[in-house]
């Protein structure tokens, strides 16, 4: 029997109630019989005797000698403090986990929303591309459909007008000329309208090239020179050599031709001046005529579609009424420039267009 039982016995015997065995100690007990050192032969004999003591007897011995209860005494103060600490930690951890969970859920919801929005966008994009393609096809097929019968009208009347196969009766010659002219007018209208619809739907291709401004101006002037001289008027140009341009030549030419054509149609005499002025970033092209001029109230509407001045010259002039509208659109939307007009009623008009020499690249 070990120290524990001795201690217990002593405590009981001496009545030390203020001592308690309060914790498990590493001392275990075992039944054993102490033997004098000089009688070692007794050990195996006594050991066998011990083994013969059965369970019940062991318990009895135990009861008699181990009259001590020990309990694991609890240091309540420490326990309380630890319990509180643990509870607090648990609360903190739980709180933290709940917080994380909420964040996760919010993130998940946001992600799902983004995903859904993305899918919607993709669908819308596909639809837009399809609409775009249909629009292109529409414009192309309208153009084709309208031009096909015109091909016959203009073509056949053109050949007849030339008297290719036989001379025509004067009356019929007149008729055929009118048919031919109407056909050409219709063609011009269709071309302008298609141009405008292309511009409106943003599908005009801009073809940028490098060219000399004076060459372009001379080309425009040459194309209209005959008609001008037939009317008894003259043309003068003031364009310096060596002005290099980097922009859409065809479109700029189109605008200039429009101004020239108007100048010629709405003048009956005098000279048409074509001037180009070079500025640091831009060039200013102007066409001045000594024609009928334009009243203030007409000025405002002039660049609108189908607007024409009320004048005896308008009827003779022909044209589509779309020229200035288209010119303005081309100048402002394609060529990144401006158009304008200065005029005095009865004195003449100056139409001008100002565009950058270098067309800035678009995205």
């Amino acid at each position, binding site marked *: 029997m070990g120290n524990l039982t001795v201690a217990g016995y002593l405590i009981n015997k001496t009545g030390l109630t203020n001592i308690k065995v309060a914790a498990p100690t590493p001392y275990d007990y075992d039944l054993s019989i102490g033997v004098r050192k000089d009688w070692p032969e007794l050990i195996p004999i006594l050991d066998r005797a011990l083994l013969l003591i059965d369970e019940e007897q062991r318990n009895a011995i135990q009861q008699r000698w181990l009259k001590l209860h020990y309990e694991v005494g609890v240091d309540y103060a420490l326990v309380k403090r630890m319990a509180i600490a643990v509870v607090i930690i648990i609360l903190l951890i739980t709180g933290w986990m709940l917080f994380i969970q909420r964040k996760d859920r919010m993130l998940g919801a946001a992600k799902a929303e983004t995903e859904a929005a993305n899918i919607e966008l993709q669908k819308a994009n596909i639809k837009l591309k399809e609409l775009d393609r249909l629009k292109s096809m529409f414009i192309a097929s309208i153009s084709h459909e309208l031009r*096909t019968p015109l091909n016959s009208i203009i073509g056949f009347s053109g050949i007849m007008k030339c008297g290719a196969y036989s001379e025509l009766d004067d009356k019929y010659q007149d008729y055929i000329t009118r048919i031919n002219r109407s056909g050409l007018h219709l063609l011009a209208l269709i071309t302008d309208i298609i141009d405008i619809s292309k511009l409106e739907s943003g599908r005009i291709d801009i*073809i940028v090239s490098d060219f000399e401004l004076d060459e372009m101006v001379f080309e425009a002037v040459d194309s209209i020179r005959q008609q001008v001289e037939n009317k008894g008027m003259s043309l003068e140009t003031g364009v310096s050599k060596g002005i290099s341009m980097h922009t859409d030549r065809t479109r700029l030419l189109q605008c200039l031709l429009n101004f020239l054509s108007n100048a010629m149609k709405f003048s009956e005499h005098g000279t048409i001046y074509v001037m180009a002025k070079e500025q640091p970033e831009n060039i200013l092209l102007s066409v001045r005529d000594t024609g009928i001029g334009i009243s203030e109230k007409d000025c405002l509407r002039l660049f609108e579609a189908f607007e024409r001045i009320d004048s005896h010259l308008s009827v003779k002039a022909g044209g589509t009424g779309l020229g200035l509208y288209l010119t303005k659109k081309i100048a402002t939307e394609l060529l990144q420039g401006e158009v304008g007009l200065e005029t005095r009623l009865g004195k003449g008009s100056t139409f001008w267009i100002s565009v950058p020499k270098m067309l800035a690249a678009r995205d």
Partner: protein
Amino acid sequence: MTTALVIEDNPDNMLLICDILEFNDCGVLKAETGLQGVSMAKELVPDFILLDIQLPDIDGYKVLQRIRASEEARSIPIVAMTSYAMVGDREKLMDSGCDGYIEKPIDPGVVMEQIQRAIGGKA
């Protein structure tokens, strides 16, 4: 006398072109579909070809391709006729192997000029 092959599906346009050509002393061969045009080009080897780009059976560009791909007809001058007149078209046609380009509605003066130029270019 020069002989032209005209590949055009619209009868009015065909008549117009042929009359202009005959007036200018050209012999005329007529094909009303793209496929017909390709085989006639290969068999009859005209001096030049006028090709309508908007054909009903196969795309005018395909006709161009096949004629250019054939041994017999590869080097015949081809002038395209089109009414699309979209800015990119001219470049696209020239890149695909055309030697000239006529916009519809046709201007008789332009027709002969383009043809002369195309033939001249190839000569």
